[in-house]
């Protein structure tokens, strides 16, 4: 009878724990950790040029290949974009997060929170697609620039080396805009959380001691908001580092890490090299996460 089973489990709480924890733990360990492990192992194999098969012998060749100038280029380009996006998103997110934390009434805050969450959870691809429409040569932004008589500004931007391109939709500037857009909610929320935790008494004390609002902002609020910024930057950095959708939709021929990984494993089936390539971002993110932990970002998550 059910009651007897229940009592048996009650008396042996380790058994109940096993039943509860077992399935998810087994799943995550076998499927996820297991995959990560095979990825790591694969990075030490290599692809035989002639047979096109993966040879299961230990070698560090893939890692050496990572340091080829072309590949270093890819890493640098991706990391540079990630850094730029992180910076820009911080600047855009901060006023909104600050307003939400400090000045919005409860009702307004709840609505704003919802408004920030909606883009976060609605289709990422659609939002990227929306920007293709906006940035297209005949699209809204061009039209806007033309109408404001600033067409030459746009042309000038687009003719810049490295970050320009035939149109906004196919340029690094365009990619930058889209990256900033899609990750923005990830930056707003942690900053808002961190700011909310600043007790008002600190600000009152600061004013009481004679500081003007600007000074209080710089010396009291900003440092306390910093862990939130770092927390948000984890997302923006990591997501940019691994993304291939946006570079594929809007980039020219120069690859980002994500695209490199796909093409390497896809066309040539060179999983070992792709694996080694992927280890790159993993390492970068681990270092970043450790740094962020030091800076107190995990409390703001």
């Amino acid at each position, binding site marked *: 009878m059910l009651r007897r*089973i*229940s009592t048996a489990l009650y008396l042996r709480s380790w058994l109940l*724990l096993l*039943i509860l924890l077992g399935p998810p733990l087994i799943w995550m360990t076998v*499927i996820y950790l297991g995959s990560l492990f095979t990825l790591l192992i694969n990075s030490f194999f290599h692809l035989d040029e002639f047979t096109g098969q993966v040879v299961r012998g230990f070698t560090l060749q893939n890692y050496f290949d990572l340091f080829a100038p072309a590949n270093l280029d890819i890493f640098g380009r991706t990391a540079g974009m990630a850094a730029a996006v992180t910076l820009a998103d911080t600047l855009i997110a901060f006023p909104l997060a*600050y307003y939400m934390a400090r000045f919005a009434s409860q009702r307004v805050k709840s609505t704003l929170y919802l408004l920030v969450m*909606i883009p976060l959870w609605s289709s990422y691809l659609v939002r990227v*697609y929306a920007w293709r429409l906006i940035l297209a040569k005949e699209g809204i932004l061009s039209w806007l620039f033309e109408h404001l008589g600033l067409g030459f500004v746009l042309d000038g931007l687009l003719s810049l080396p490295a970050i320009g391109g035939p149109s906004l939709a196919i340029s690094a500037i365009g990619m930058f805009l889209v990256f900033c857009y899609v990750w923005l909610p990830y930056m707003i929320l942690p900053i808002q959380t961190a700011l909310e935790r600043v007790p008002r008494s600190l600000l009152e004390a600061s004013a009481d001691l004679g500081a003007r609002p600007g000074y209080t902002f710089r010396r009291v609020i900003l440092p306390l908001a910093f862990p939130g910024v770092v927390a948000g930057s984890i997302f923006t950095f990591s997501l940019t580092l691994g*993304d291939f959708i946006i570079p594929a939709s809007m980039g020219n021929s120069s690859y980002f890490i994500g695209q490199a990984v796909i093409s390497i494993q896809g066309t040539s089936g060179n999983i070992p090299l792709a694996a080694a390539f992927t280890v790159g971002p993993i390492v970068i993110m681990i270092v970043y996460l450790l740094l962020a932990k030091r800076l107190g970002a995990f409390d703001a998550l």
Partner: protein
Amino acid sequence: MRSNPPLARDPAQEQASPLLKLAALAGLLFLHLPILIIFLYAFNTEETSFTFPPPGLTTRWLGEAFGRSDLWDALGLSLRVAFLATALALILGSLAAAAVYRSTFFGRDAISFLLVLPLALPGIVTGIALRSAIGMLHIPFSFFTIILGHATFCVVVVYNNVLARFRRMGGSLIEASMDLGADGFQTFRHIILPNIATALLAGGILAFALSFDEVIVTTFTAGQQETLPIWIFSQLTRPRERPVTNVVAMLVMAITFVPILIAHRLTQEK
């Protein structure tokens, strides 16, 4: 902290400077305007271009989109994948949340970390890791391998929601139920389930949204199958079907909006 109210506004205190309000509003608009653009373009008469302003408005593309069988196939696949992945995530996530809540055991904090890892690490890492493992075991890429990947990163969404609800519920409710004569199963049915129901629903909705929209891991774990995001992605890189894509984009946005709203409501503090 009673004596240290948080940063929120005291009605008697200062108002935000107009500059701040402007900057905040700008941020908000930046977030939402592009979405509105989609709606505009879905009704564009002009077939091949993205010209602004659109020359005319028509509903004819809606009709065309509905007639496309490949679109329906992709949608159907996405829905089936999302349902199964969500079901799996609900089970695994709830079990994990229950285990973490009721006992302290060695490695407890590690569980939360492990569960969030698929979302914390970039998608290509999860994607290619799964691909290399599946390939190594010579398993064919199929519907089931897609679900494998999706369920893995959806678990944590359910887990977080259910765990937070457990914590709010408090353990004395369960003890009270048992004290009054209900065994474990009866307690689950009468007390636990009703109290976590909305958390399950919210977590399920969010997991569904996550799976429905996912493209990166799916690219790596699918065989010939095409989910809706993969279909959209192919349009992004090799645009052939602009007007239909516009319609699809608009419909996807509209459809995901309502469940997000619901999930948000369900997780509000009473």
